[in-house]
């Protein structure tokens, strides 16, 4: 008789299999899983609560804070998008962050490839130069950046912000991508050269496709950082029409002093700010994890 007994329409697990499953789980493993589950629930819960709260009216939010909305209303989103100008801020953020990340990758990826694969005098010095760049505290740069951008008439412009974002992101991006490129086998380059590739063709046809997990990793990390970036945009952007979402959220919080605490709208604003990075992470996380572990497995 088959060990697996199945009732129609229901997956069946024999009692011996179930006993084996729980028997194989040690106490230490069970505690680990429990702690991880609690930690995950803790994180997910508050995020989910904010999102759910954004679909409620304010009075329902305070009256029934832990209940699901009786009616799911998008009024808060509409209000924040139009009245509080989040539509403008959102498009500003999309333009600034997407362009920054794309241009950053265009600049940093070839640089990382050359620094990791070529041997020339000064290579280590240049690599260290990028690493040192990561150690500069950004607040120290507020005044010089503002002065410089003003001098070249890019202060209070999205273009100026993009340039600054790219410049400040290059060190970290080059550092991460250099180690990714270093982990790729040298024989692939040799094979490509023998097949007839020039240097840039080796990069374009062979090395860059293989480094995509690393590229996805830095793209995601930079996107998240730049999307949530607040201090630099606060210093460099003054006009309301040039605000990014982080500045817009700050403005929304300030306006709550005068609007009587429209918490539901605030949660809607937070949701608008948060959701894109969550969606991007969901799409790129597998590549990112692959990128994190690449080189650990031959």
């Amino acid at each position, binding site marked *: 008789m088959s060990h697996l007994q199945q009732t129609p329409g229901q997956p069946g697990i024999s009692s011996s299999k179930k006993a084996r499953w729980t028997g194989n789980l040690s106490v230490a493993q069970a505690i680990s899983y429990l702690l991880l589950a609690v930690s995950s629930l803790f994180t997910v819960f508050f995020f989910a609560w904010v999102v759910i709260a954004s679909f409620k009216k304010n009075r329902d939010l305070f009256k029934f804070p832990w209940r699901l909305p009786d009616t799911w209303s998008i009024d808060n989103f509409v209000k924040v998008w139009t009245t509080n100008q989040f539509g403008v801020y959102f498009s500003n953020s999309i333009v600034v962050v997407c362009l920054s990340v794309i241009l950053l990758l265009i600049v940093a990826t070839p640089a990382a490839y050359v620094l990791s694969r070529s041997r020339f005098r000064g290579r280590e010095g240049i690599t260290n130069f990028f690493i040192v760049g990561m150690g500069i505290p950004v607040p120290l740069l507020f005044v010089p950046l503002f002065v410089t951008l003003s001098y070249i008439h890019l202060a209070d412009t999205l273009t100026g912000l993009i340039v600054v974002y790219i410049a400040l992101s290059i060190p970290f991006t080059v550092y991460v991508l250099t180690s990714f490129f270093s982990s790729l*086998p040298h*024989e*692939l380059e*040799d*094979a*490509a*050269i*023998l*097949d*007839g*590739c020039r240097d840039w*063709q080796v990069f374009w*046809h*062979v090395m860059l*496709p*293989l480094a995509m997990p690393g590229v996805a990793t830095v793209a995601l990390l930079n996107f998240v950082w730049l999307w949530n970036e607040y201090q630099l945009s606060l210093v460099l952007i003054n006009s309301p029409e040039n605000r990014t979402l982080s500045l817009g959220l700050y403005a929304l919080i300030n306006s709550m002093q005068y609007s009587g605490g429209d918490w539901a709208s605030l949660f809607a604003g937070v949701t608008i700010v948060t959701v894109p990075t969550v969606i991007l992470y969901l799409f790129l996380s597998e590549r990112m994890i692959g990128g994190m572990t690449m080189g650990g497995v031959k």
Partner: protein
Amino acid sequence: MVSVVLKDIRKTYEQVEVLKGVDLDIREGEFCVFVGPSGCGKSTLLRMIAGLESISSGELWIDGQLANDIAPAKRGLAMVFQSYALYPHMTVAENMGFGLRLAGKTKAEIAQRVRDVATILQLETLLDRKPKALSGGQRQRVAIGRAIARDPKVFLFDEPLSNLDAELRVRMRIELARLHEQLGTTMIYVTHDQVEAMTLADKIVVLDGGIVQQVGSPLELYTRPANRFVAGFIGSPKMNFIEAEAITQGNDACSTILLANKRQLKVRTPASGSLKQGEAVTLGIRPEHLTLSEHGAIPGEIEVVERLGSETYIHLNIGLPLPLVIKVYGNPEVRLHQAIAVDVMEDQCHLFDSNEHSHSR
């Protein structure tokens, strides 16, 4: 078919000279094997021929043309790497057609060529797979197929079988030999495995420490090694070496030597006539040229018996630091710690002088 000529090829990394003047003439259609221990410079030499390493000094001639400054892709070479070096993000077909695509061939030409090569190597059903979905042997065939697709003048192989298991290695070795027979193209093959060298090569180049020790056919290296290094490197199990002293001068057909364990032995006098009385020499004798005998010239006690089925290796303690290894066909009735003796085939003895050069040359 194309010849490859190396004239005083040297390679220096910073202050270290890793190749010290290599002169070599590889004829058209020849299967030439570079063999030697790790670090001897054989892969560096191959890479210099390929153009992946610069030549510090010397001349490389390919097909009658000085190739030192010719770009790797323009030398008409194709290389098969130890780690296969297949592009992981491309399918088998794309891997094999990549070089042709870069050369500007049309899609139809590339597809046809890939199909033809796939047929030769029985890869037709694998063309749409990625390398990660292939076994080691399949990957190796794809690597070879990629090389063949480019229709090179010379094939270069850098230890292509070293990542395969023993059984697959034997099969691929036979396939490579068939391929050479079929294509007739000049092939240069690098390996540290002397069995591969002996079975595949028309010509073997033995390297050690960046210096060519000997160049010759497999049998030539086996029967007339130029020095102790070649003698010890070629042949499995390794040649036995015993320190000795020449007692009689090399005038007669046979000479007598006194072994380090105080046993006297008659050996064939080297044809060069360079053996001098009292000269310190090293006797070299292959395991298969020793025969078990009750009252043989060299007695000893059996330390180890390795039975492989068709042959047996007996390690005999003859009172010297290293045991004598004897190769016997079949399964002789011997046991550990048994006292036996061995006879030496006089005409199969090799004598090496104090500089480790063979007295036969």
